[in-house]
Structure formats: C-alpha cells, structure tokens
C-alpha cells in the first residue's frame, strides 16, 4: 500500500476536455437543459408540498421519481425533460456552442432519485412526514441547480470518493 504516484492528466486546452476521468467523455449537452429541467422539477416539488400529506401529493411525487428514473437510465440528453427541453425550449433560445459533460447532471439525477424515492417508499410503509421531508430536501437541491447551476449531489460526490477510499484502501491507487 504505497502512496500512488502522481500522474498528472494531460493539461486540458478546451472546455470540453477530460475532468480527469478514466473513460473518454461522452458527447456534450447544452448546459442550460439540466437547469431548465431542475426548474420544472422544483415546480413539481412545490406542488407536492402545497398539496400536503395526501394521495395527490404522493402521485405528483411519484411523477417526480419517474422523471429522475428517466434521467438516470437514459441520461440527461435523452431523458423526458432533456428531450422536452431540446424540442420545446432550445429552439426558442439563442443557440449556444457551449457543451457540458452529461455525467455530472446524470449523477445529480441519481441523487434526486435517491431522496425522492426514499420519501415515496417511507411514506408507503407509513413513516409520517416522509413526503414533506423528502420533497423539501429535493426542492432545495432543485432550486439551487435551477437558480445558480449548483449541483448539490456533485458537491457531496467527493466526500463519497473519500469514504469509499477509506473503506477499501487497497483497492484504490
């Protein structure tokens, strides 16, 4: 278990270059897409909270969970909200040459799925206020994403890397 050699990645020259990942980056997406999607998600979560603890709120939260599933499984470009953005919103906006790695927004969708999915499941097995707590947490994350482009899940990702490395020190490096 020696200290790993420092292997600098090739310094990047373009914004679309590697983030130091081992696999080559997939095709970039319009970075405004995930933010618009987060806005739609935030609106749905506000609806969940305003509906209160009842069946209607559960149905809307279920829809949000399905949107997150689509984001995780299909990726931000081909997911329901990503497709809606490309067909309905992007043609009305100024075209942009800016492209973003789709992996971070996909990870954000996974974080959203875990939070809202847990709320849904916990509510169904009778835990009180599960929907309210889950929808509130997801709303904080969605609003931050829509308003300032911050991916809360990505902020936590590095802590996850550290925890994983601590548990399996031999497997890394």
């Amino acid at each position, binding site marked *: 278990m020696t200290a790993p050699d*420092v292997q600098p990645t090739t*310094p990047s020259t373009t914004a679309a270059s590697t*983030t130091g990942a081992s696999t080559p980056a997939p095709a970039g997406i319009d970075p405004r897409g995930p933010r618009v999607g987060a806005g739609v998600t935030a609106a749905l979560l506000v609806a969940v*909270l305003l509906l209160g603890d009842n069946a209607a709120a559960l149905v809307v939260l279920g829809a949000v969970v399905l949107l997150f599933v689509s984001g995780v499984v299909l990726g931000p470009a081909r997911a329901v909200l990503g497709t809606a953005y490309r067909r309905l919103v992007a043609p009305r906006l100024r075209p942009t040459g800016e492209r*973003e790695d789709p992996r971070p927004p996909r990870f954000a969708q996974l974080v959203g799925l875990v939070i809202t999915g847990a709320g849904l499941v916990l509510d169904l097995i009778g835990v009180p206020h599960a929907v309210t707590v889950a929808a*509130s947490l997801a*709303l904080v994350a969605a*609003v*931050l994403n829509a308003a300032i482009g911050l991916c809360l899940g990505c902020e936590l990702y590095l802590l996850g890397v550290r925890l994983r490395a601590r548990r399996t020190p031999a497997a890394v*490096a």
Partner: protein
Amino acid sequence: MTAVLVSLALAALVAGVLRRRNGRFRAATPPGTAGGALLPAPGRLATFVQVSTEACATCPRVAATLERVATGTPGVRFVELPAESHPDLLEAYDIRRSPTVFLLDGAGQVRLRTSGPVTADQALGALAELLGTDHVPTPTPTGGQP
C-alpha cells in the same frame, strides 16, 4: 406552505455562502502528513494544481481558465489531477469539494487554496499575491465575473 418557504430560504442561504467562498483564494495550512510528496513537480515560479472529479460540472471550465492563465504567465504551470485516483491527497489536504485548486510556490509548497468556480481574475489575483504584481499580467478591469 411552511415547507416551501423553509426550503427556499435554505437554498438562498446555501447559495449566499457558496457565492462568498467560490474561487476566493485563502492561505493554505500545511498538511498533517507528508502531503507534499503527493503533489506534482512545481513550475519555476508557481503551479496551479486542480483536483477534479467525474461528477463535476464546473471542473472543465475552471481547468480551461487556469490553463489559459498558466499559459499566459511565464514560469507558471497548470496540472489537473483526478480525485478518484488520488485518495491520499484528498485526506492529506482535507479536500471536500471539486474543483479544489491549490497554488504552489516555486519550491512546491502549497501557499493558497480555493474551491468551486474560479475566474481568471481570481487566479491572476492569487498569482499576484504569491509572486508580486511584476510577474503577473494585470487582471482585466471588468471585475471578478467569468
């Protein structure tokens, strides 16, 4: 209704805190262990070391900015390291966010650090703080926005 307002207030609070912290270089405390050996060989005058992750939307943009600043400043190097393959570095320097950027002096000592989105002006300001303004191109007068 209360939950909506609490969530929005919390989001505003987080946004405010991050806006203050993002890209603001501060003095770095030396690592507890022999962390210096974990960093790459320094440039003649200074080195920006950026620790990035795969799940980091701002990392490529920050890397491009620092690369540009390093290219435009003689003796300054830029290196990007993937966090996933440098777990010891993450512990030694208590790295919690990506990107985290270190500014090393010519001897390879970490002098300044920051995290989050970094603008060219912030990077140039940190270089000026480390090297004195003689070595560094003057930041554009437009302020700190990217």
